[in-house]
């Protein structure tokens, strides 16, 4: 995908079906004669399908597709049975993937989810015990269109289980396995499953092992109560492990009921692991393709969690469904509707309005180095070797990292200009600078974190003076040095946490810059600790207050002599001196050349 809002060019790979879409009438004769049998992915591997198949009942279009990886047709041992029986001549082994190119104005990313694989949680014995299944497998077993036609049986003996246990939060709310978030849907899914079982088989006893039941949506609490009234027992406590009786294949669970404080032993015919959901495997690839950022949980990050929940930070890209965060069908439908409305509004307007805060290149100063283009998180700067950089304003999000990185002052921001920020720095430090904690805070997180500290009425020292920038990456080396030159005792650069960066990954530039500054301060004989870097999110008012206290303690250790020494040490070298040194260096080089020539002549 290339381009920008209102003007994207996308290339779509249409995978080969090997069956003529128009000719196939889904008679199914091909599948009857196909000798290749493979596990059916749709039925979670609980039944088999042929190499030529319809992916799932009610698939649209209802046309067969040939799984070429498992088909014998193109192998050395040619089969071709499906082609022989197809009266419509719909089978085409020579079919190939097709690349379709389209111009589009906006893109909705709705790539869905993956389900957590409980294999790594060996304590639940998913791979060891036949009668431990996942909630997805349960779904297929109880479904009328499933492998058992809706007859619920346990895998070990194909008998109907009478005691079924559900274990919640498998792969959710578990930082130990890197899944600290709540998957949102599992509680209600289990409640629904218990109601289904109670409806189909009133004699079945259900036990749900949980840590919290999150029944917060419309009518959800009612459903939860109905499940309890239907006889489902809810035990507050997650089992540590599962044991199997080798003869009966029954499963034994020992669990501490944290409500009663007693240890309980349950013998069950079957256990259903209520597995959580995880970001889809191809999210990483899509993220790179569309320059999208992710949250710490691995899902896509929206432009703003409250005000722009369906917008991606990249303009013209919208989210729908699970790829943005775990949500149920209703919320996914709502978000999809909102995304479609946003796209409608964008395209119907006919023109795109961009924020005024964008960067622009001052061509006279541009040295064609391309640094700006290489660091722009939105790929909004076009540059080719030997050419001046050029900003595509429709793509620029205004983080300002390019402006801070350009060593030649050739990129200027519209708003938050270098001159404005420098003027603020000098104004703040014009009076008693040694008594101030100088803070650069990013607009989205750290500044909001300061607001949160204020709203929460947290107590912290009043010595801080905050300059807001759109992103911490907007803070250039020169700005920090200017603060020290103006007598700042300590300087704090603060921004969003890595995963929360509102400009994809612009704050990584902040880290690089601060590392460089620490080295520079070290070399100049200035205590590098006087420059601090902190990630403070909008919700971390407490952290903001704590950091301000720490900064104030640090400030108190800085003496007036130290500040004076810093002013001197960081004083910019006068241009004349620089020029003279350059001239001297040139002269030196000339002398060296002459010397070399002389030596050569002598040796010659």
């Amino acid at each position, binding site marked *: 995908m290339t381009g920008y809002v209102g003007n994207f060019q996308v290339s779509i790979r249409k995978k080969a079906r090997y069956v003529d879409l128009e000719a196939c009438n889904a008679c199914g004769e091909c599948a009857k004669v196909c000798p290749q049998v493979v596990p059916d992915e749709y039925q979670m591997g609980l039944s088999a399908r042929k190499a030529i198949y319809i992916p799932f009942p009610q698939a649209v279009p209802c046309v067969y597709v040939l799984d070429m990886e498992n088909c014998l047709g193109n192998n050395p041992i040619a089969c071709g049975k499906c082609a022989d029986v197809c009266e419509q001549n719909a089978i085409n082994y020579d079919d190939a993937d097709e690349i379709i190119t389209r111009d589009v104005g906006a893109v909705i990313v709705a790539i869905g989810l993956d389900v957590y694989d409980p294999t790594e949680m060996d304590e639940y014995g998913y791979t060891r015990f036949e009668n431990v299944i996942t909630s997805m497998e349960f779904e297929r077993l109880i479904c009328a269109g499933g492998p058992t036609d809706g007859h619920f049986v346990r895998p070990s003996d194909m008998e109907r289980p009478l005691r079924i246990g559900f274990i919640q939060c498998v792969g959710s709310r578990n930082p130990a396995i890197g899944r600290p978030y709540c998957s949102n849907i599992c509680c209600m899914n289990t409640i629904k499953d218990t109601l289904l079982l109670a409806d189909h088989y009133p004699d079945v006893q259900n036990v749900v092992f949980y840590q919290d039941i999150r029944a917060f949506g419309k009518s959800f609490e009612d459903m939860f109560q109905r499940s309890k009234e239907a006889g489902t027992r809810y035990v507050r406590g997650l089992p540590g492990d599962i044991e199997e009786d080798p003869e009966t294949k029954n499963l034994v669970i020992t669990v501490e009921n944290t409500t009663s404080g007693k240890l309980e032993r349950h013998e069950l015919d079957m256990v259903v692991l209520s597995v959580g959901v995880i970001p889809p495997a191809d999210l990483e690839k899509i993220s790179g393709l569309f320059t999208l950022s992710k949250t710490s949980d691995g899902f896509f990050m929206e432009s703003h969690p409250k005000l722009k929940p369906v917008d991606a930070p990249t303009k013209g890209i919208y989210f729908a469904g699970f790829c943005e965060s775990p949500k149920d069908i209703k919320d996914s439908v709502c978000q999809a509707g909102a995304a479609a409305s946003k796209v409608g509004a964008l395209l119907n307007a006919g023109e795109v309005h961009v924020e005024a805060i964008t960067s622009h290149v001052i061509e006279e100063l541009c040295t064609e180095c391309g640094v700006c283009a290489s660091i722009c998180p939105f790929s909004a700067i076009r540059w080719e070797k030997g050419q001046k950089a050029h900003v595509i304003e429709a793509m620029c999000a205004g983080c300002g990292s390019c402006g801070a990185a350009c060593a030649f002052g050739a990129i200027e921001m519209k708003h938050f200009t270098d001159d404005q920020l420098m003027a603020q720095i000098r104004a703040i430090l014009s009076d008693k600078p040694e008594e101030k904690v100088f803070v650069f805070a990013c607009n989205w997180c750290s500044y909001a974190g300061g607001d949160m500290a204020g709203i929460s009425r947290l107590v912290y020292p009043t010595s801080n003076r905050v300059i807001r920038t759109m992103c911490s990456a907007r803070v250039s080396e020169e700005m920090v040095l200017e603060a020290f030159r103006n007598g700042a005792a300590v300087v704090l650069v603060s921004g969003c946490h*890595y*995963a929360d960066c509102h400009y994809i990954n612009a704050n990584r530039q902040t880290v690089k810059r601060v*590392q460089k500054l620490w080295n520079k301060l070290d070399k100049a004989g200035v205590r590098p*600790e006087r420059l*601090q*870097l*902190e990630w403070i999110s909008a919700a971390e008012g407490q952290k903001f207050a704590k950091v301000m206290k720490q900064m104030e303690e640090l400030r108190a250790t800085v003496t007036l002599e130290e500040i004076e020494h810093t002013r001197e040490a960081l004083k910019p070298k006068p241009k004349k001196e620089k020029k003279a040194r350059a001239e001297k260096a040139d002269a030196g080089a000339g002398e060296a050349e002459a010397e070399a020539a002389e030596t050569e002549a002598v040796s010659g």
Partner: protein
Amino acid sequence: MAVNYFRCMMCGYEWEEEVEKGEDVERSCSQCRSSSIRQFKRKPEPKE
């Protein structure tokens, strides 16, 4: 993988860690939770 050295600029705590090329990791000090982490490729001189 290469061993890099880290120093917390807030509390001075130092440690070493294996670093993957091109990694994207937010580090914080295990002692004071500060994000002011200075990274060194070679072992830094002990702090006075």
